[in-house]
Structure formats: structure tokens, C-alpha cells
């Protein structure tokens, strides 16, 4: 009888993440097709409709890119934190906190110059996200408390805080009892570049470049990588590993907070529990699929944005919007499985 064992490969193909993603996406399409066939829907028709309604026209493409913006920004926040080999499961909460940060500053400040006001509001969103991860970051570096647990738990706290605010102090009397804060004024709406495409997407491109630089080209990114590889090596090299981990967490939280701020100023225009529809969790999928690479996050995030838009419009032909969620999740599973075989190979164990 032959037995097999797994052995780690010496050299992993540099494009392996890309190939894994493509393979994972194909696997996801097959899974999606099977589910559609089981519902007596033609998968090719459904997918081509999704394609047409998500990127087939300037308008639908704009919607897709607007949808992708918070996913990408939150994904970047996760990737930056992962440079020190820590996991941010709290992007969802940070998105809410970013939106809360915007509204907080908006009701406490008024400026006539709307450009400066918008920039300050976005800064407030960034700080809100950073504030949201402050306690997980502190207990991580001071006591070594597992950040996966703490960032996850802050999501519930922040969503609870949002529910309190929109039902209590920030409740909009004109909202007909719908739990939401009042709309912000039109003067602080993020304008559109053209058609429906918001300036939020431009911010997203800028921050992708910034994250790419920070992670891959800067001294700070290098120090984060060493600190993530081994705290002892960092100390040996004269790098304050705990400080890098702390800063990485705050910056990553800020990126996710910004996602909430952009979403509020460009799409929802008010704080409600609907600010994010699980963007922070989808962002984890995107960041994981791309191996935490900012440019990959931008591309996959764009695709996932289009999938969401495509998924939401196929309801008209009687297909559940959840088909998009299934494809997103199956892409991650497929990509992870394929990536595994890039990293490991099966070895036959000889009997003698």
C-alpha cells in the first residue's frame, strides 16, 4: 500500500496567487452554475445578464466601482495590519466607526469651504477607524491578547453603539421612525467624477497606491515585515516591534474607517445600521485571496463590487441575490485549495 505525505515546496511560483485566484473563480462559477441548474435557471444566461448589468454600461460600471470602493479600502486596512502578521477581523466595526466619526464632526463643526470640510470629515472617518481598533491594539502590544478575538468583538460593540445612536441621540425626527441619523447636507456629498462614478473611487485609487508604497517600498513597511517575521529579529535589528504592530493596527483601522466615511459621504449620506452590508467581512475574503497585496485587492475588490451589483439586479429574473455571495465565498475556498497545492506537494512514501 502506498502512503502519501505533504512536503513544502522550496520555491513557490510568484504568480501562484494570481493563478489560484483564477482557478478559484472558475471553481466558484461552476458551483454557482450547479446551484442555478438546480433551480432550472440557465447559468450562461444568468451570468451574462450579471455581466451586462454590472459592467455593460458606463452607469452600471460606475455603480460597480462605487460598490467596490469600501471593499477595497477595508481590504487594504486588513492587508496593512497583516504585514506584521496580525489579523484584522474588525473592519466591519471600523467602517461603522468611520461613518460615526464623519457624523460626529459634521454635527459639531460647520465650514463654508466644502472641499476642506469634506477632507476634514474623511480625516475624522480615518481617526474613527483607528480609534475603533485602539483597544485591541493596546491589549495586543501590552498583554499579547489575541487580536482576532478582540477585533471581532469590537464589531459587536460598535454595531451596538450605532443602534444606540440612531435610535437615541442622533435619531432623525423626520425619518418616520426609521432608525437612522439625519442626512448630512448636500454641500458635503462627495461629488461624482462623471456619470454616477463618485470621487470616492479616486480616493480608493490613491489609497491603494499609498498602501502599496507603505507595504512594499517604505522603510516602515520593511520594519513591519521584519517585526512580523520574528519579534526577536526586530529587536536585534533595532526595530521596536511592538511599536510597529501598534502603528500598523491603527493605520489599518484608519483605512477601514475611511471606507465607512467614503460610503457615507458618497452613497448613504447618513448613519444607519445599513452603512455596511458586511463589507468588512467581504474585505477579509478579498485580502486573503490576494495574499494581502494592495494592487491585487484593488482588482479583486473591483470584481467583487461588480459581482454584488450583478447579484442585486438578477433578482428581476427571479434569481436570488445570494448567488453573488456564493460565488465570492467559493472563490476564496477554491483559491485557498489551489494555493495549498502551490505551497505543498504530495510525496509518495516508499515502502522500502
Amino acid at each position, binding site marked *: 500500500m502506498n*502512503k502519501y*505525505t505533504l512536503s*513544502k515546496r*522550496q*520555491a*513557490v511560483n*510568484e504568480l501562484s496567487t494570481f493563478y489560484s485566484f483564477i482557478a478559484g473563480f472558475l471553481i466558484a462559477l461552476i458551483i454557482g452554475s450547479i446551484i442555478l441548474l438546480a433551480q432550472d435557471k440557465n447559468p450562461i444566461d444568468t451570468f451574462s445578464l450579471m455581466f451586462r448589468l454590472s459592467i455593460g454600461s458606463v452607469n452600471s460600471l460606475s455603480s460597480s466601482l462605487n460598490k467596490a470602493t469600501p471593499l477595497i479600502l477595508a481590504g487594504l486596512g486588513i492587508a496593512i495590519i497583516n504585514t506584521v*502578521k496580525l489579523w484584522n477581523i474588525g473592519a466591519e466595526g471600523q467602517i461603522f466607526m468611520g461613518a460615526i466619526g464623519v457624523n460626529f464632526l459634521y454635527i459639531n463643526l460647520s465650514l463654508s469651504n466644502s472641499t476642506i470640510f469634506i477632507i476634514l470629515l474623511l480625516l475624522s472617518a480615518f481617526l474613527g477607524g483607528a480609534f475603533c481598533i485602539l483597544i485591541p491594539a493596546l491589549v495586543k502590544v501590552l498583554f499579547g491578547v489575541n487580536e482576532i478575538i478582540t477585533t471581532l468583538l469590537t464589531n459587536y460593540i460598535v454595531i451596538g453603539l450605532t443602534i444606540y445612536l440612531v435610535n437615541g441621540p442622533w435619531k432623525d425626527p423626520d425619518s418616520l421612525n426609521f432608525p437612522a441619523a439625519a442626512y448630512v447636507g448636500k454641500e458635503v456629498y462627495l461629488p461624482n467624477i462623471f456619470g454616477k462614478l463618485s470621487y470616492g473611487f479616486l480616493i480608493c485609487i490613491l489609497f491603494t497606491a499609498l498602501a502599496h508604497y507603505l507595504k512594499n*517600498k*517604505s*522603510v516602515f*513597511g*520593511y*520594519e513591519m*515585515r*521584519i517585526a*512580523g*517575521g*520574528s519579534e*526577536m*529579529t*526586530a*529587536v*536585534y*535589528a*533595532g526595530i521596536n516591534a511592538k511599536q510597529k504592530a501598534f502603528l500598523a493596527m491603527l493605520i489599518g483601522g484608519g483605512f477601514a474607517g475611511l471606507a465607512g466615511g467614503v460610503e457615507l459621504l458618497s452613497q448613504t449620506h447618513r448613519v444607519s445600521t445599513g452603512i455596511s452590508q458586511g463589507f468588512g467581512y467581504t474585505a477579509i475574503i478579498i485580502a486573503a485571496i490576494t495574499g494581502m497585496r494592495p494592487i491585487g485587492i484593488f482588482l479583486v475588490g473591483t470584481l467583487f463590487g461588480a459581482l454584488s451589483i450583478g447579484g442585486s439586479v438578477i433578482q428581476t429574473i427571479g434569481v436570488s441575490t445570494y448567488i453573488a455571495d456564493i460565488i465570492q465565498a467559493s472563490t476564496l475556498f477554491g483559491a485557498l485549495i489551489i494555493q495549498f497545492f502551490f505551497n505543498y506537494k504530495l*510525496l509518495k*512514501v*516508499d*515502502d*522500502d
Partner: protein
Amino acid sequence: MNNKILETKNITKSFGTLKALDNVSFNLFEGKIHGLLGENGAGKSSLMNVLSGLYQPEKGSIYIKKQKYKISNPDHASRLGIGMVHQEFRLIESFSIKDNLTLSRSNIHKDDFMTAFKKYSEIFALNLSENETVSNLSVGEKQKVEIMKIIFNNSNIMLLDEPTAVLTPQETIQLKNSLETLATEDTKTIVLITHKLKEIREFTEIVSVMKNGKMVSQDLLTQKVSDNELINLMMGNVKKSQINKDNTIGDVKLDVINVSFKDPVNNIKKLSNVDLQIKSGEILGLAGVSGNGQVELANIISGIERTFEGKIIINDNDISNKGVKSRKKLNLSYIPENRLGVGLAPGVSVIDNSIVRDYFQTKLGPHLSKNRSAKYLENLINQFSIKAPNPKAEISTLSGGNMQKLLMGRELVGNPDVIIAAQPTRGLDVNAVEGIHNLLIDQRNRGSAIFLISEDLDELFKLCHRLLVIYEGKVIKSFTTTDSNISSVGLAMAGINE
């Protein structure tokens, strides 16, 4: 020697590119105490881990009483009568002795526990109640329970990994007597893994020697083989190149003045009043058994450990209160003992690891240009003939020798004034060792002051001008290598200060 109870043929086990076991054949004879001798990293523990089912070999076969078996896990090994006592005990501290002994389903003394417990308590001279909680036991007592546990699990073949490392001399004699009784009265087959010749002599009848993953000699009768033969087998034929020690010695480069240090975690004193000076062109050795304060001293000199008393002066600059980076700027290099984990960051690329020393200097920064880093690494690869085909690959894809060359190269390329090298050749093969020694000699001739921390006395005698011996955090003796002999240094390392 005809009662062969266990035989392995051509066992091969690799970890990445490293062959931990290379075609190893090994025999065990019923009722005998066997020695398995070899230096650290020779493959002794790997072989035992194969026999006890922890590792699955890629090649080779195992025969127990002439029948072929594939030992798939420790439980399987235990059912085949093979038990292993690891260096770290596998006991449940909060359980009683009895519960620990009877925990396994392979336990054969369910019904006659007390009879068996009394019998073996006598053999091991263990005067304890079976209800005593294990956490109250001394290390020696725990080891006895651990060995009894594998006997209770019906092991006829007992593999003991460096069992004397944790014992006092009296306990060692006691263990020897117990094992002899087990071999003669219970016909247990025992393997003692060790790198101490004295124990091979005292404990064993048959000895096999491993080196670099290979079985270099097997089934020698201990009584018929001399210490010198064993040493030669174990160490191989190291060519002793005589190194000229008449090079020019210059001014003092490193001055360590009255350094004392307490471990902040448990407040235990690790260093007491250490004084030393190293001059340009001089290699000062620090001999000592691991754990006598060497790591702490190296960390204090390199700036990693900042909570000490005393002074560190490099090139006339008092840097006692300065950190790692300012010491690097004064051209100090540190090659730490722990290569992968301290010197190099696991999971990080070769190129990132290659610039750990200099990344903050302007020649690489301020934006950490990829081109400059790549050129920096290329220079290291050429100058120190490192085999690192893919700069973006993880550091752990390099062999141990190449990792050490990269680490040494990185620390030496800037021609440092002061070098601290801790165990720089540990675990490397003869050629790699020779290469590392030549690098250090080159730096010495160039005028570097070198502090060489090592357990390897041959290495220290070969390279150093002077030797200090550290014992329990104190420098207890100083030697000049040209007019001292190895044995007096060895005695000092054991704390014997004549």
C-alpha cells in the same frame, strides 16, 4: 549478539534540503544497553523519532523480531513495544503517579498495579506513594516515573533521549544501576542517546556512532573500543590548520567594565562583575557550557538588553545607554547564536533578511529602493559565495550553511571594528565551519576586535589569542591559548577552579 530484536535498513528522512537521516541502518539486541553517540545535530534524535513513530521516513524499513513493520504513530510504536523517554517529560503534572502510570490503554498492570509499582519502585529506588501528585516531584523523580510509564505500557525497547542531562551525578549512578537491572532481570532492550563519552563507557555494552545524518559505525563493543576511536568517529577527521597568531594587535576597541545583570522576569542574577577588553586584531574567546550567561552578555554588548549595571565602551565611546542602532553606527556587528529567529527572520524573504543590519543607513534608504537592496544582496552573494538562487524566496529555503553565510556576510561586509560571534559554527558541516573560520581570521587580520562565544574548545583554541571561561555568570578564569591545554579549560568550564 545474535538476538537481534530490532533492525532498521536504509532509513532516510529529510527536512527540506537537509537530510536528517541518510541511509541509516541500526541494530538492537535483546536485553542489552546500547549507546547512540553523536554530536548535536548528528541525527540521533531523528532516528529515535522514527522508531517511536513520530517521524515517517521517506525510505527504508524497520524490522522487529525479523518481521517488517511500518510504524505509523507513537501509539502504534507503543503497541509494538517501543517506548521513548523524551528530554521534556510527557507527564500530566496535576495527576498522581498512579494516574500517570495507568493512563494509557496499553497499560499492562491494571490488575496488579501495586505489585508492579512496588517492584519498579525498588529497581528505581523511588520512595514515594503512588498517590503523590507529579508536580511535587523532583526532576530526577519525574524521570523515574516517566521511564516506569513506558515499562507499564509494555515497552520492551526503551529509547532514552539524553536522560542524564537533567540529573545530578548521584542520580546518574542510580539511573545506571536501575537500567542494568532492567536489562538483566527484565530483558529490556535499552538505547541511551548521548554525546558524552563517559556515559557510553559507564552505561553501555554496544555503541553505534552517528555523524551528519549517517551511521558511521555500528554495533561496536564498548569495552573493545577506545575513547580516541570514538572521538574520531564522532568528530570525523577535522584538519587542524595551524593559524598564525602573531598578527599585529592594536588599541582597545571594546571595553566591558564591571557588567552585572539580573533577569528582570525572575530576578535571578545572570552576570556578576564581568570585565573584559578586546584589542584591534585580537580574538578573545568565551568558553562555557551553554546557559552560563553567554547570551545575556552578548545581548548587553550588542544593545539588545538595556537593563544592566556597568559600562560598555566601543572605540572610546561610552554607549552603555545607547540602543542597537547607535552601536551599529559605531561599527559593531553581532552574529547571534540563534540563527533563524534572531539573526534572520523566518517567513521573510532572503532579500529582506540580507539588509537587516544596514536598512536604516542612507546607502539603502530612505525609500528602501528595491534596486539598491538587490545590489546589496548580489554583492553579499558574490563576496561570500552564498547559494541563494531566488532573492524573493523565504529565508528558510536556504540550507543551514548558506543561512549562516548570509548572516555572517551581512554582518561582516561593512568591515566592522567589533564583532561578537556567538556559536557561529554550531550545526554546520566541516567545510562550512572552515569557511566561517577563514572569514573571522580575515576580519582579525584587517584589525577587527572579535569576541568569539563558543562551546567548541577546538574552535576556541584554533582561533583565539586569549580565552575567558564563564561559569554561572562569572568570568572565573583566563587563559592564553598558546600555553594552556584543553583539559584545564574543560575543568574550568565545569566550575572547577584550581
